[in-house]
């Protein structure tokens, strides 16, 4: 009996943060429904599809951070794949755009896996290497697409947004594109040998190495997975906006949001702790703040200030809770 109670308490402590994040998301959705005059399928479709890029980016960032790294080039990778796909996909039929899409995801995975390999070989800290790659990626994006432009096929836009001009009311496709990668990533991290080796590597490098985990392989796989997810985010962006945009600031902002989302979602920046699912809920929250703030009639600049402040305040509360728990021990 007491064992059950104790296990329940342990579960609550282990998943408490995750539950809190989902609760916060539910409250925000409820608030949004009350806030706007009409809440229908158009609003649902718009929220789901527009949150896709950040959700993908957060999944990728979560996998990399759980493996013990951090990718400050994730946003730049989104910009690079967005620019590349918009350039290649312009005026192509649906089937070709799908093939290009797969090619880009594979290319992004290979490129970011190579970055993981460089981190292994050079022993330069992740944060420095990926800060440098963020510049390399956005430089490449500018080379491929010097200014906003390009395009994609109507079918490709339907695949991510449910309509050929990106403004429909059906959200089946978007929901599918949201759930499938989340389920795959969550299953990969929790149920596969490789996923567990990523957790082991991020949790304690030496212990993982001594128990026979190939830590170099884990790092390369983690970064490759993160790259593929950032590539998917770039594809979602081209489907949503119908064009490519190589601006540096877009990537920098996306990186900030992805890091904020995973930390808010309970992934520890020290590695080995947290889950993909928690990061996804937090990513939707971070994205969701801007429609809420705009529904409240706050201009985008002030909304950015409020969003940044909210992230800080939430992290401050988390810091205080952690401090109290440590004192209580």
């Amino acid at each position, binding site marked *: 009996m007491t064992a059950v109670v104790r296990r329940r308490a342990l579960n609550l402590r282990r998943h408490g943060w995750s539950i809190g994040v989902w609760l916060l998301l539910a409250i925000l959705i409820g608030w949004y429904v009350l806030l706007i005059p009409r809440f229908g399928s158009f609003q649902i479709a718009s929220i789901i599809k527009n949150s896709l890029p950040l959700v993908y980016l957060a999944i990728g960032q979560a996998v990399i951070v759980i493996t013990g790294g*951090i990718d400050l080039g994730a946003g730049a990778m989104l910009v690079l794949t967005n620019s590349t796909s918009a350039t290649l996909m312009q005026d192509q039929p649906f089937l070709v755009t799908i093939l290009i899409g797969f090619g880009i995801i594979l290319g992004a995975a290979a490129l970011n896996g190579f970055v993981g390999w*460089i981190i292994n070989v*050079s*022993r*330069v*800290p992740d*944060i*420095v*290497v990926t*800060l*440098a*790659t*963020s*510049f*390399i990626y*956005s*430089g*490449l994006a*500018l*080379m491929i697409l*010097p200014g906003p432009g390009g395009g994609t096929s109507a079918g490709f836009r339907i695949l991510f947004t449910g309509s050929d001009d990106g403004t429909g009311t059906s959200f089946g496709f978007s929901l599918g594109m949201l759930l499938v990668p989340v389920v795959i990533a969550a299953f990969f991290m929790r149920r596969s040998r490789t996923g567990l080796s990523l957790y082991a590597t991020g949790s304690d490098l030496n212990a993982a190495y001594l128990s026979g985990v190939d830590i170099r392989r884990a790092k390369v796989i983690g970064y490759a997975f993160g790259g593929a997810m950032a590539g998917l985010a770039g594809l979602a962006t081209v489907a949503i906006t119908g064009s490519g945009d190589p601006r540096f*600031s877009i990537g920098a*902002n996306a990186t*900030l949001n992805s*890091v*904020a989302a995973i*930390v808010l979602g309970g992934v520890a*920046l020290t590695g080995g702790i947290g889950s993909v699912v928690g990061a996804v809920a937090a990513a939707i929250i971070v994205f969701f703040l801007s429609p809420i703030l705009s529904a409240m009639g706050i*201009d985008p*600049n*002030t*909304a*950015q*200030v409020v*969003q*940044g*402040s909210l*992230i*800080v305040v939430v*992290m*401050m509360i988390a*810091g*205080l809770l*952690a*401090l109290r728990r440590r004192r209580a021990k």
Partner: protein
Amino acid sequence: MTVADLPGVRRQAASMRLLADHPLWVLGGVLVVLIAITGAIRPSYLSFSGLRNTVLLAAPLGIMAAAQTLLMLTGGIDLSVAMVATGAAYVAGNRSPSGALIAIASGLLVGLIAGATNGIGVGIFQVNPLIMTLAMAAILLGLFTSWAQTIFTGSTTVAPLIKTLGGGSFFGNRVPYNALIWVGVALVVMWLLKRTGLGRITYAIGDNPIAARLSGVRVWQVHLVLYTLAGLLAALAGILIAGRTGAVDLQLASTFLLPSVAAAVIGGTSIFGGVGSYSGTILGALILSVLNSMLTFLNVGQAIQQVVYGLIVLLLAWLYAKVTTER
């Protein structure tokens, strides 16, 4: 292997060890080689006016990298330096009509407030420095973008004194004033790190924060002081950059963020804390500035410049890691 080979092998190992013990020599060598290459591309570079331009660029970068070095030594980082610098420069530009000194003081005030806020977040509330400073950058960008249309609609050019400090030179137009300020900052930072208790505690926290806390260091106070100092240094750098360009806008210092981190990393400061020095960072800032001049002379366009810049930062960090782990 024959016996005759051995002394040669040993000599090579000894020279590697010498380099590993004095990594700053490697950096000095890289700097000289880069200057020579740049001189080969554009012979007029190897003159007082050519090198003066590099120093003009290196001084604000070096000051911003000083902020980064101080925080990296504690195991932290400040990704808001570029935005703090821009904000300080913007305020200084707007206050310029009421006199240069008031303008500089209000610019520094921006750095003081932003830095202290970072310090409170990181020191007292234990927010991860990466999150705290990234969010600070986003907040400042939002604030200044909306303020630019409301309360800071005034002047976008800076006062003559700031222009002189940031872009002027003396001694027959050879030595820039901002280099003088950089030397002052460098002396203070090196004195702080090498000769004061705060400096020793800074290294101690970066080396092992728990040990530092258990031996009675009030870690949060050190964080508060250092982040505030970093904000002030970033603001100073921003004002100097504004003085060099003569006018302010909200993109002013955004290109300085990667170089400020890279200068410290190339200079041998560990991003995990506890290891490094400001003298290495100075060389790092000079190397990056020479590199910048070189890429400008090659006239390759912004896209290729960004790629090459990122690649070289990566290679230099790699080289440094290789040399220092050789021992």
